[in-house]
């Protein structure tokens, strides 16, 4: 599954996203890059609940380790859901290298 998400997020580079972390922090920013571990780099960030996290006010960009992400809110017009379904189907039907034991 890793590659589908990676492939998907690549198309969202430059789009505004909101990343919700497992510690309930939610950060909105422009997606700068994503890697195969779904680590995320954001620019022009803004914490959703600034009153609760005032220490984040001064932070302008960030790197988020993929494992701490709970949700990513996406801009709907930038997502081709039909294509995403197809991509999921493709990924299911062609097991990657060494998948089957």
């Amino acid at each position, binding site marked *: 599954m890793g590659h589908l998400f990676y492939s998907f997020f690549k198309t969202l580079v430059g789009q505004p996203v909101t990343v919700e972390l497992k510690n309930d922090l939610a950060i909105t920013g422009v997606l700068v890059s994503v890697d195969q571990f779904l680590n995320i780099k954001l620019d022009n960030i803004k914490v959703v609940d600034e009153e609760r996290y005032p220490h984040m006010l001064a932070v302008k960009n960030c790197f988020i380790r993929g494992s701490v992400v709970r949700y990513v809110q996406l801009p709907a017009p930038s997502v081709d859901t039909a294509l995403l379904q197809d991509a999921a189907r*493709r990924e299911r039907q062609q097991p990657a290298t060494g998948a089957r034991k």
Partner: protein
Amino acid sequence: MSDFFGFNTVMPGRQGGRIALNLEEQQELDRQVQKYALETGEDFEIYDYGETYDNLADDLEETRDDLNDETFGTDFDFAKNTHQVAPALKKEEELYIKQSDHSGVRRSSFASLWENNGNNLQGLPEPSHAASSIWGSFSNTTAKGMDIGGNGGFAVHDPVFGQGTFALSRPSGFGGNQPSLEEIEAQLARTAGAQPHIQMQQERKMMSLEEVEAALMNINGGRPIYSEAMIAEQQAKQARLEQRRAERQAKQAETAKHNGLMTQSDKDFINRIQISQLVTDDPYADDFYCQVYTALRNRHLQQMGIPGNMMDPEGIQGDSRRRGGNGRTEQRMQQQVQRIVSDAKRNPKRTNVTVEGALGKIAVNSVLNPRQLLQVSKRGSYAESSGPNSPKPPSPGPVSTKSHTVLGWIENVYTYVLALEQKRRQQPPPPRMGEEEIAGEAIRRWNEEYGVLARKMWNELRITVPIGIVHPHPFISILNYSKGKKVIPRVLRHLLPEQTLTLLTMLVANFESLNVCKSEVYADVQGNQEIELFMNTIVPPLLGFVSEAPFRIVVGLLALFIERNNMIWVARSKPGLAFLTLFLSRAEILKQGQGNYPIPEDREVNQWNELYHRLFNQLQTHFSALFMPKATMAEDVHVWRFLAAMAVGATVDQQHVLVTEVREQVLENVIAAQTSRLSPEKAAQRIGNVNLFLHALGLDASQVSVPAM
């Protein structure tokens, strides 16, 4: 630096160089200062800038003052004003010097400033001693920066500075240029009249900045002197800092011997190994979404007239791939990476690949195939139907239409559609000169594979399952899911014309079992969405097919339609009406000899007329019921279109029947449009709808006379 923002900063006492004061004079000076301090109530300290000033201000930027006029206005010339006042100031200074006998010549200008401004300053809140503790932690440099300010007339009276800046006016009175701290303290103590502490302080050899500060605070506030704890704390802090620095240096020294151990190519190699996890030899397989999304986006942009290369799939690859520098290096790197990838793929059994030279092992399963956390045991039936290698031909026997079964069929259809689309992308190029044989072989093989996939897809659609075994027909069951509707346009691209006809025939024959034909689906939002989907996905491609079909086919389809469905029921649905309209209008076109076909034979025309009468008779007395009860204007255009198609082929009697039956709807629309209850656009739309029908009869809405109510 001769001026400071236009102020003359040359101190009078400095012009003649240093003036050596003897001990008596110094004592006298001190006395004067003390007196002044008592008079003004200020902590007046004396600073020797000559000793401490490090020419820091020489670095100040003197140019770029061309905007000064804008900033300060042209009506005030600082330099000139200062210049004018200068004689007066000088005079004042001289006066003061005379007044105070031997008072510090070098300080006189400073002191006179105080004299002049003393009253004002006294009125101001005194920069508190608390402030001094803040400044106390400043480094020497900062303190010197403040000195510059003081030089220009800024009243610096904060008693605490770094050791370097803290100097008394006596240049060499107690031996050595810099008076010791003890002297300073003694001096300060005397100034504030705090004699009792002097002895103790003098016994201390080394005093930190904080100690001095504490001492000063005590002197000024008359409180007990600094605590031992503070000193201890300070020393501990110093020690910690010292230790940390030493540790850091040691670590750096430790690692320094490894510097340059790896060459740039070594680093590149490791980079490549890491990147190899991202690079794929088949972008459509491993990077499907990104590739297709970009392609679609580019096509869309091109349609809008924007060059499509704005979004290059390579451009939004992982940025690590971009970093490779120029194109050739990148290409070479990619080749090497591909070699690594294929090497890794050659050993699919292993989950770890140790590439020679790599730091550690590369887990093959981390990216392409992450470690499975859930092990779901597949039950036989599911695995059979889902595996692409085990296509199960649809059994002609009893077919279940349980939802998960149907959804399974749909997914299989998708699987083959995706495979076919992939095949299309890999279509071999047309043979070049001299290579016909090789290319021909490739094309033949491609056609074969494509044909196999298309057949599998066709089977999965279950169109050929005989009617009547299961209800609804399996194909209709597929169409009853929105997923199933959506796949149809993509399926049709891979079908042969005969297959498309079979599909259409099967659809027409079972039309009334479609869920979009049920009248209750119009009640809820989801139902309406399904209808919209049907109208957008299935109708257009089949309309395209029918609009090229010969008369014989159209007759056959309408016959089947009327034969196998309840027309009243079907005609009440938007899709049903759409298909009826489609057949009627196509037949009319062909009857008139248009559409690249010869005028049909009389026998066929008679057959058609018979069909038409049957349809008309079935729908008679129901024409007005075709309108939706709560229809808004946009929604009944399809009804008017159908009525128009009926009207064209109708006899005079039938036309009369039609007009009589829908007279009310015609009137309603015309009245609504005329009474201006509606916006002009809506009114025009309503008239337009009515005219669709009336024009087919040779009439127009303007001829309709609205009866008085």
